[in-house]
């Protein structure tokens, strides 16, 4: 039994009559409950598109997409997405942004404050509760976006390059936090990244996508023991996964550059 099932999934963005973009096509991916799956692939291959389809914010053009055996039908707060562009609400403070999902659920103010404080602490933004997004650095905004997505206690977390603009130290800290949250909340994670070592370090499975129109080229199981530790980065197994995945990604990248 799979939690997420994508079969022959296709998404075409229609821009006017003649200009259509086939973002993904013949996309097949099955994800088990509580699995941590990373998606890597060349820029523009449709990674964000797939996350949007799973979130229910975009509708597939063709193919099947099931979650828990049910076809995806619109967004659901139990499937949270952390956008590549953060998309914080600029008129709300850090706290206001984090509390948005709770506000929508009409949770009383006091309770909201308690919950948001916990998540703000989790992402290391204590002391910045009353700042507005334009007063934050890119990495801080990204952390607000993560906290905002987590308050709803989602069953599926979709993360679109969430650590892209973080410095190495914060990045490592949040990677560890993410693994902890994933472990504790017993949720399922889809994680888009450009960093292969990050994908290997975090994931049960890494999906390599082809260039656009994107499809899953290979799904590799990462057979490293859990809990993962930083010293695994230098283990020969880790290196071997990295090397193999890099090769697969480079093939796609070369295809792209050849076309140009």
């Amino acid at each position, binding site marked *: 039994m799979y939690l997420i099932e994508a079969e022959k999934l296709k998404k075409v963005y229609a821009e006017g009559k003649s200009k259509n973009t086939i973002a993904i096509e013949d996309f097949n991916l099955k994800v088990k409950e509580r699995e941590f799956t990373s998606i890597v692939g060349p820029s523009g291959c449709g990674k964000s598109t797939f996350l949007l389809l799973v979130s229910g914010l975009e509708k597939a053009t063709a193919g099947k997409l099931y979650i828990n055996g049910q076809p995806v039908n619109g967004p659901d707060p139990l499937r949270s997405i952390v956008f590549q562009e953060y998309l914080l609400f*600029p008129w*709300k403070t850090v706290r206001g942004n984090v509390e948005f999902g709770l506000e929508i659920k009409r949770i009383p103010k006091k309770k909201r404050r308690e919950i948001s404080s916990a998540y703000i602490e989790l992402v290391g933004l204590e002391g910045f509760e009353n700042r507005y997004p334009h007063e934050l650095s890119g990495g801080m905004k990204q952390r607000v976006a993560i906290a905002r*997505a987590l308050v709803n206690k989602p069953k599926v977390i979709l993360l679109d390059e969430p650590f892209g603009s973080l410095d190495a130290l914060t990045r490592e800290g949040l990677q560890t936090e993410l693994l902890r949250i994933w472990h504790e909340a017993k949720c399922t994670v889809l994680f888009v990244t450009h960093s292969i070592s990050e994908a290997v370090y975090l994931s049960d499975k890494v999906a390599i996508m082809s260039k656009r129109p994107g499809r899953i080229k290979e799904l590799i199981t990462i057979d490293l023991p859990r809990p993962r530790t930083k010293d695994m980065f230098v283990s020969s197994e880790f290196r071997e996964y990295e090397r193999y995945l890099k090769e697969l990604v480079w093939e796609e990248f070369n295809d792209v550059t050849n076309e140009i």
Partner: protein
Amino acid sequence: MTLPMKYKYRKIISPICLMVIWEIVGRFIWVDPFFFPPPSAMFKELYAMIITGEVFPHIAISITRALSGYILAAVAGLTIGLLVAWSSAVEDIIDPLIELIRPISTFALVPVMFIWFGIGNGSKIAIIFKACFFPIVLNTIAGIKGVDKKLIQAARSLGANGSQLWIKVLIPAALPMIVTGMRISTAMSMLAIVGVEMLAADSGIGFLVIDAQRTFATARMFAGIIVISFLGFSLDRIARIIQNRMLAWHTETSLSGGMV
């Protein structure tokens, strides 16, 4: 706006120089004081108006008229603007009317308003309404339509839908533009009220000026103009203060160069 004090003084240099030169020309060089009453005469006249209290009923009646028209325009502009942005059917019906009436100069409609509403307060309020309505309705429509689609997606993924999207996302996100429209209209209301009071009125600050001109009291006429200038300036300042208070998150972004 947060210039250091010593730079703020620079801003009053040019008005003072103008006054001084005018005074010198008026006194020592032969010009007809009927055309160029020296500032000292104007301010003497202004002082008299204030001391006798004669000017205040005129100011009060002008502001009452301007405010009545403005409030009606704000209510109608916001309501119609939101409806147009909400439904394309409403847009198709209303938009042609807006596009047809908007380019007509406010003062071209004065005769029509006189016929419909008489030469009393009704027509004046209608003229103010015409002047104020369009900036508000157009900015409301543009503001709502300009909200980043992705921001709406972010809110939907957190569980917001229907009216919640309007109250918690669309309106707050559009507020900077809506408030800008309302601020432009405060200036419009001042321009329109003075103009229409010059055409037909027996009270109001515009009447005071035109009445002084008709009775060849030019110093008094200029004193009235100073009052108008002062009123317009204060109104704009008040509007700006309200705008900055409401949009602390936004004005600071635009000041620092970046937009939301």
